[in-house]
């Protein structure tokens, strides 16, 4: 969908993997930019209908660029810089909680928080 403009600058490259395939990008690019430049128009499918989704806003608002990065799901690909040896996996439906046996594998997402607010009787301001 996108191509890089030719640049005269020395561009230090980093190599990350997307679904196990090596992708080389310029240092400092976001994971979302890396996915788009590698020709991936979508980075996840939705939990509700399984529809494919790709980055929409590129600035952390829409959450449609969610992917798993280094085994943690629901990461905003547009907000995270590509790093050497980073493991990016396109996400199918809801995030999967990796069975690492450690407490840091669980993630609170805002969907759950919205539920909490509801149960406790969210009121209009």
């Amino acid at each position, binding site marked *: *969908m*996108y191509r*890089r*403009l030719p*640049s*005269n*600058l*020395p*561009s230090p490259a980093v190599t990350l993997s997307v679904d196990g395939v090596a992708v080389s990008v*310029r*240092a*400092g*690019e*976001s994971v979302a*930019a890396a996915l*788009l*430049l590698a020709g991936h*128009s*979508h980075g996840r499918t939705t939990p*509700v209908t399984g529809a*494919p*989704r*790709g*980055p*929409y*806003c*590129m*600035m*952390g*608002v*829409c*959450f*449609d660029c*969610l992917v798993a990065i280094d085994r*943690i799901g*629901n*990461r*905003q690909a*547009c*907000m995270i*810089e590509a790093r050497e040896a980073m493991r990016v996996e396109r996400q199918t439906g809801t995030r999967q909680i990796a069975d690492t046996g*450690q*407490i*840091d594998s669980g*993630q*609170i*997402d*805002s*969907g759950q*928080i*919205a539920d*909490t*607010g*509801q149960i*406790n*009787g*969210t*009121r*209009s*301001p």
Partner: protein
Amino acid sequence: MDLAIVGAGPAGMAAALEAHGRGLSVAVIDEQPRPGGQIYRRPETRDVTLERALGPEYAHGMALTERFLAAGLDYRPATALWDLSAERKLSLSSGERASELDAAQVILATGAMERPVPVPGWTLPGVMSVGAAQIMLKTAGAVPRSPAVLAGSGPLLYLLASQLVEAGASVRAIVETAPASNRLAAAAHLPAALRQHKLLAKGLAMLRGLKRAGVARIEGARGLRIEGTERCQALVFQAGGFSQRFDTELVLLHEGVIPNAHVSMALGCAHDWDEAQLCWRPRLGPWGETTVEGVAVAGDGGGINGAEAAEHLGTLAALGAAHRLGKLDAGARDKAAARLRAALARLDGARRFIDLLYRPAMGQRVPADDAAIVCRCEEVTAGEIRRAARLGALGLTQAKAYTRCGMGPCQGRMCAPTVAAIIAAARGVDESAVAPYRPRAPYKPVTLGALASLRDPAFAVESAAEHLYRRDVKDEV
């Protein structure tokens, strides 16, 4: 810490430089890895050729980011604010680490976000916002592989198209959705806007440049729809009395920008409906003070005024904070502010003109098609919201309970304006009568691991509960 500033865009950077210069201890929190906000985003290594294509305002922004970086401030990039208490305790996360910061004063400089454009098919891969494509250009030196179609309303359409052309990419067409009646409404503000003649001249030069480059402009487009099954294949619309179609793999949508008021809303600051800009904005005092003590808002997060105004507003907010902290007497504060207020008054005339000229068409804000997705996260359609309104949902919180709209990871950021507009239309009331969502912490996803890093890991869950329930308890008091 005397002052915590959230956001390192023009307002945040200007506030930080002013406060630092006045002897305040300042911390600047920003989610991006590099300063500049969205408007002055940049790649890791600056690229002079690219910067030339981005224009003189961008060059000004680069100079500001260099000054900011050289000032020796406590600048915390790649750090998210995920909770802010009324006692001004900031809960932050960076990677897998969480931390807390207590500040005597807080300035929220969270900037703007693009208004959602809920046309049928806008969730397909290959449909992005105009701002998103501009971020691809600024941060990755990337342009659309094949000519994109830009659609909607607002100066950003022409700016991005010009920047793409300047960078050597071609643009297929600009499909304009602003109603013709906007011109008449805007004309009344032309004399005031002419005081900013440089801005208008720049706009006209952009339009001439696009014409030279052979970029088609289609005026008065209505009924926009993206076609495609797994991804975007075409933009279809009505214009000039007949149906038109552009086959393209990339459609870029834009209907102006609105304040990113997520944090000020969550904090419970009073907000007012702005009928000119069709958005909620925090109620602010002369120094950007919100109705919550010690918390100010500066820049586009307080109402859309643009990057130049944002710098002035950031400086004003810093002067106000310095005074409240007893580091600056009222006379010196007001003297420093006079020049800024005069500059803001000049910019205001042009802003009113732009607001009216590019005011979004109702059809772009409220999809006529019941099947159009409104809440992208939970895939709730316009028809479902209308049904909820008929069943008695008076506001967003009820619509959320009926349909799950706003309950996904974006926390309603992408659907709130649309859901409110649909309910207002269905109830036959002003949008000001439809209460917005009350966002809650964590504003951004945070891992239990990060929470555990705050205190004893064994208390991670209790720590989470503390943040989640605190506000509710207080609501009941």
